[in-house]
């Protein structure tokens, strides 16, 4: 990365933090409340509206049912809060639905919970941001045409805040959350006081709803109730976030959860009551537009406008509502990456989700979440009513699984008072299961079917990833495929020459120094034959001309490989001259890139890359020069067959010094590596180096520079064990580190990289 790029990244994201600074990001309750509760609190902004929308379809008299329905939703909310307080106490290390279900109910329920949660988080971002933009549009009509653009902009804003890290976001988000709580109570209390002398009426009170379109049946009541349960979304956030609290973590988290429940229920009931006494009507936005010719305001906006007759307080309330909704998305940005990292640790998602970025946050999870949410907003054209149809299925699946898991937990532990706890959680599970059924039935046609279909797809994907990782693990430990103590065979070399130049002469020098059994050159242009014979008269040359250069090279390599025994190594050397130190250079040679990746898929073929920057060529040297010293480093992550094969390979390079290096990201994993190294008596030194800023490529580069390679007398060879899988779609699960390292080392003088592929059979 160039200096300018690095400076820009620092300006946007902040300075890189070392792994140890993680500890300092623990949160006090006052900051934790806004971080983990903005989602739950903000749903007050649209829960009442969703109930009115359903009841309004039936007719004016049906609207009277808003209060009993709100009370029912409020009771359900308190049941769920009480239930979750137990989870927080039982799981101080964070008890998201996935962990609880996985530990107590088994793998499949765990994955069901995980996929529901992942979908839920994406929808939280989409729904919250769109609802927030609705609040803005309600206050400044005319902007509704740009809803999609504004929403996507806010998603990006929250994503960047989160890439910076959780503590900074905490301070940033405290003000809007407390501002929203204040403004809601101000609205409810003022509304109540005004009602003592006759309630103000909402602007939509005289809206002509058809008196009675259809009979008010049980189904409609259930549907309205299901719609109102959006008030429950986000309650679970605290249970995921216990480790982010200050000590005593469980107690602080449980207290925060109780505060959250109290505030949330009182605000929701207050708003629902006001909507009833002020006779607020709410229609589908499209219908409202057709009926009246102007855009519809949200329910909160109508109430606030009615109580304060417009004016600064009305705008204050709208701004706070928009702010908390947009920042509610933040809850998902804290939880999605964390869940993804846990799933990656359990091998259900690609390993990359475990990597912490510059600022100690799980950057990959944040970026994926922002992308998916933006897509959803765009596809649904920022329509809140449509998005919300998808929302509740995932929420209630995870509630139900989490509570059921807790029942099993109490049965297993038999702690003091476990029966009482089991009954509380059992009741919670039963209630949320009933609501889940209602939600699926009433919202299926409206969009919930999308989620119902997506969940099994996600589960299948996660199982397939898991199966693959497990297969790889078994194969890498398989004693019959263990190359250790297998006497390495002979080493054969093919040099691919696209030009007889300084890089080629370095390749010749390298091949001579390693005393390979035999060396062959391939030129692609017959005109290169003469200069080649001057450079390396002892090395036989094949001229490969034909339609496709890659096919020609491949043919020679395959012929050669067929003559060798299984224990022999066949290294294909690819010397290349790079014009500039820019990353563009990588794309300037698509043919070389394609050649390398084709060769890597060949069994028993290793690819050695000798890059040389144009400006580093010494014009006074026109002969091949044998390096006097060759330091070989095998990059390892664990003791397994691929590592052992790479070590065997490195031995046959006849380096002056050979050692394995590893860069510690996870202290436990590196300690395991060290102990296994000693246990298996690997006959080479191993160095484990800390990478405090979690940038393996950079740490490796700094490590290698201390050997001061010049490419002529002193060469550093980096041996990278890589995996070749049978199914192409699995390739993304491997070699990401190797890829990064190769790209970074490409421009470093005197460093040669070798990929030693390990072919997985997955039988």
């Amino acid at each position: 990365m160039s200096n300018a790029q690095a400076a820009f990244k620092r300006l946007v994201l902040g300075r890189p933090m070392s792994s140890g600074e993680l500890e300092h990001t623990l949160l006090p309750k006052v900051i934790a409340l806004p971080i983990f509760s903005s989602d739950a609190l903000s749903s007050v902004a649209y829960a009442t509206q969703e109930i009115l929308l359903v009841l309004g379809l039936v007719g004016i008299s049906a609207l009277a049912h808003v209060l009993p329905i709100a009370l029912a939703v409020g009771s359900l909310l308190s049941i769920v809060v009480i239930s979750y307080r137990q989870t927080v106490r039982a799981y101080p290390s964070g008890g998201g639905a996935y962990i609880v279900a996985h530990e107590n109910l088994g793998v499949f329920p765990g994955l069901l919970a995980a996929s529901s949660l992942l979908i839920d988080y994406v929808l939280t971002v989409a729904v919250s941001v769109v609802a927030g933009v609705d609040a803005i549009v309600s206050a400044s009509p005319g902007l509704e045409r740009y809803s999609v653009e504004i929403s996507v902009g806010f998603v990006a804003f929250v994503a960047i805040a989160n890439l910076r890290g959780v503590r900074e976001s905490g301070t940033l988000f405290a003000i809007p959350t407390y501002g929203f709580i204040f403004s809601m109570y101000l609205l409810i209390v003022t509304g109540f006081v005004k009602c003592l002398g006759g309630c103000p009426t909402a602007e939509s009170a005289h809206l002509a709803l058809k008196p009675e379109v259809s009979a008010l049946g049980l189904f409609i009541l259930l549907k309205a109730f299901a719609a109102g349960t959006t008030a429950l979304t986000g309650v679970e956030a605290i249970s995921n976030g216990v480790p982010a609290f200050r000590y005593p973590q469980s107690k602080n988290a449980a207290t925060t959860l109780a505060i959250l429940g109290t505030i949330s229920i009182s605000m929701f009931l207050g708003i629902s009551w006001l909507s009833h006494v002020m006779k607020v009507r709410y229609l589908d936005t499209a219908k409202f537009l057709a009926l009246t010719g102007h855009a519809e305001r949200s329910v909160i906006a109508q109430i606030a406008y009615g109580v304060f007759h417009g004016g600064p307080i009305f705008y204050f309330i709208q701004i706070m509502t928009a702010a908390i909704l947009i920042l509610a998305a933040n809850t998902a940005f804290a939880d999605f990456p964390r869940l993804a990292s846990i799933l990656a640790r359990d091998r259900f998602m690609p390993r990359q989700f475990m990597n912490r970025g510059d600022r100690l946050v799980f950057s990959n999870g944040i970026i994926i979440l922002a992308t998916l949410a933006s897509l959803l907003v765009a596809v649904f054209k920022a329509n809140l009513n449509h998005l919300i149809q998808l929302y509740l299925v995932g929420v209630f699946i995870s509630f139900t699984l989490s509570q059921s898991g807790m029942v099993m937990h109490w049965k297993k532990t038999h702690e003091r008072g476990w029966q009482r706890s089991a009954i509380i959680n059992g009741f919670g599970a039963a209630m949320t299961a009933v609501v889940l059924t209602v939600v699926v039935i009433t919202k299926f046609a409206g969009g919930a079917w999308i989620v119902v279909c997506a969940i099994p797809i996600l589960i299948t994907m996660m199982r397939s990833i898991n199966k693959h990782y497990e297969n790889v693990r078994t194969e890498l430990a398989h004693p019959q495929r263990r190359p250790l103590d297998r006497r390495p065979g002979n080493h054969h070399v093919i040099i691919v020459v696209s030009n007889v130049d300084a890089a080629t002469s370095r390749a010749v020098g390298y091949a001579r120094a390693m005393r390979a059994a035999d060396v062959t050159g391939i030129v692609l242009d017959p005109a290169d034959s003469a200069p080649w014979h001057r450079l390396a008269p002892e090395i036989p040359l094949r001229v490969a001309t034909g339609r496709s250069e890659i096919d020609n090279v491949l043919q020679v390599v395959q012929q050669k490989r067929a003559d060798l025994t299984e224990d022999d190594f066949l290294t294909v050397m690819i010397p290349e001259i790079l014009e500039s130190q820019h990353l563009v250079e990588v794309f300037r040679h698509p043919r070389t890139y394609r050649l390398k990746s084709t060769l890597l898929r060949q069994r028993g073929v290793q690819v050695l890359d000798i890059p040389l920057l144009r400006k580093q060529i010494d014009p006074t040297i026109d002969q091949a020069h044998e390096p006097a010293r060759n330091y070989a480093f095998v990059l390892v992550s664990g003791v397994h067959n691929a590592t052992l094969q790479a070590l065997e390979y490195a031995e046959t390079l006849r380096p002056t010094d050979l050692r394995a290096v590893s860069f510690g990201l996870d202290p436990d994993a590196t300690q395991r590596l060290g102990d296994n190294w000693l246990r298996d008596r690997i006959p080479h030194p191993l160095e484990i180096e800390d990478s405090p800023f979690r940038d393996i490529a950079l740490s490796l580069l700094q490590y290698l520079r201390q050997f001061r390679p010049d490419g002529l007398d002193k060469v550093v060879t980096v041996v990278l064990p890589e995996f070749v899988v049978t199914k192409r779609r699995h390739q993304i699960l491997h070699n990401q580190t190797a890829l990064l390292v190769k790209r970074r080392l490409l421009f470093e003088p005197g460093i040669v990289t070798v990929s030693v592929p390990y072919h997985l059979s997955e039988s």
Partner: protein
Amino acid sequence: MSVSNVIEKLGRSPEDIRAENLRRWVTSINEVTTIKDVKARERTRVAGVIQNIRIDPRNGRDAIEATIIDGTDRMVAKWLGRASLSGIQLGMGLIMEGVPGAGPDGMLVMLNPEYVLVPGPEHG
């Protein structure tokens, strides 16, 4: 945070900030010498964070080396004949006492020092 504070923070490299945190941590430990003030062949007590672990099973005896840094310099602890790392981890704090000698590359090495492992400043 003031503007000048921000500019100052942007100007300093992350490595500098880390070294400063390490120095602050070391001063909180009793009776240790900062590594840059240590002289060879004099009994001393130092503390630092494990930055590198080296395992060398060659020559028939298992040698384990841990390089510690304290924000001023680095020093190596070397144990012979150990069969496992047993707690020696990257990022852990290591307080050790012994007589250091000069190693092959000029770095100070303490052979089989008396030591305690403590949580580092960076790991809880």
